[in-house]
């Protein structure tokens, strides 16, 4: 999958789960500080990414990812290994 496509789907899912406008989300956006994610939502966000891309991510490692751009990298790595 092209990086651009992964990025656009990551933004769509982030917007849905966190209830923010997709247009405000950039690669640099931090889930907690910029997009207002509460700690409880981070578990749902990880599950939503897994569902969107049909992958399994290691939870502790996934929860350490802080920005949208880093989430794209993280997910792309999983897609390559699929």
């Amino acid at each position, binding site marked *: 999958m092209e990086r651009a496509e992964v990025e656009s789907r990551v933004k769509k899912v982030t917007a849905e*789960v966190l*209830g923010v406008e997709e247009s405000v989300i950039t690669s640099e956006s931090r889930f907690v500080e910029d997009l207002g994610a509460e700690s409880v939502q981070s*578990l*749902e966000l990880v*599950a*939503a990414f897994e*569902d969107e891309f049909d992958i399994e991510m290691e*939870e502790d490692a996934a929860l350490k990812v802080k920005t949208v751009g880093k989430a794209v990298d993280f997910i792309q790595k999983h897609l390559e290994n699929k």
Partner: protein
Amino acid sequence: MDLIGGFIEKAKRLKKRIVFPEGMDERIQRTAERLSREGIAKPVLLGKKKDVLSAVEQRRIDLSGVEIIEPLDSPEMPRLVSLYCANRKGVKTGVAERLLKKDIIFGGMMLTAGMVDVMIAGAASTTASVIQASALTVGYKPGISTPSSFFIMVLPDGRILFYADCAVNIDPDFKQLAEIGVTTANSFAKIMGQQPKVAFLSFSSKGSATHPLVEKVQKAVCAAKEMAEGTVMLDGEFQVDTALVEAVAKKKLKEPSSVAGQANVLIFPDLNSGNIAYKLTQYLAGAGAFGPVLQGFAKPVSDLSRGAKVEDIVGISAITSCLT
């Protein structure tokens, strides 16, 4: 009878169903064996049935009376997934299905659905993940936005005090502090069956010092009084000697207080003071410290320290049963 012995006797009468999501953990298996054998509670273990059974066989643990549920195989899964989606608006079925595959989330949903009365986890996971899973599944009590915790401190002379919050909230604002006070009062009443007298602590007694840190506690007392609507005896801000010693309270306070000098619930202004105080009481005064017991969730959930022994987990099971 010692305090925990008393809770165990009470728990035996209540016979609550307790779900343990960490069914593979040896200490959990040994706790389940004891709870079931002694009739303290009805334990339910989560995990891969085959793995749990072969582990207990190797460890010579008798789980004959204990229910083991494998979430992925459970006929309840679809019902719990739709309940999750109904409670957490906007979460897609596929996402809920993935979350429910985690034993701790499945356990939380069993509690939400009323299939069990208590959830106890944390033998192999962090406090933060127990709190997150509980917040997503059982949610908070009405009017509560902050989960917190308390310790039951048993002094050598037999006196029992509740300390909060010594484990979860690092720097609560005044509203959170008020919630912690009212929630701990309710926990005290439920567990001890006595009237709680809640003191909000500071380095000032009723305005003897002026500082933003004192002001936070003063605002918390006002907010807590509003929240409790006269149902709970609470007061402050007090120095800890004013809260505990009648003679000091008489000397330091101009107006009478129903709490000062006789407090049995101590609310600390932040985690620095709370955590230090409980350990000082434990190690210098030789008090027993039981907890942290989580509170503020809509149903009873308890965290375990990762170093918890079977004896501790049995005690926490009994205490948490009394919170239902």
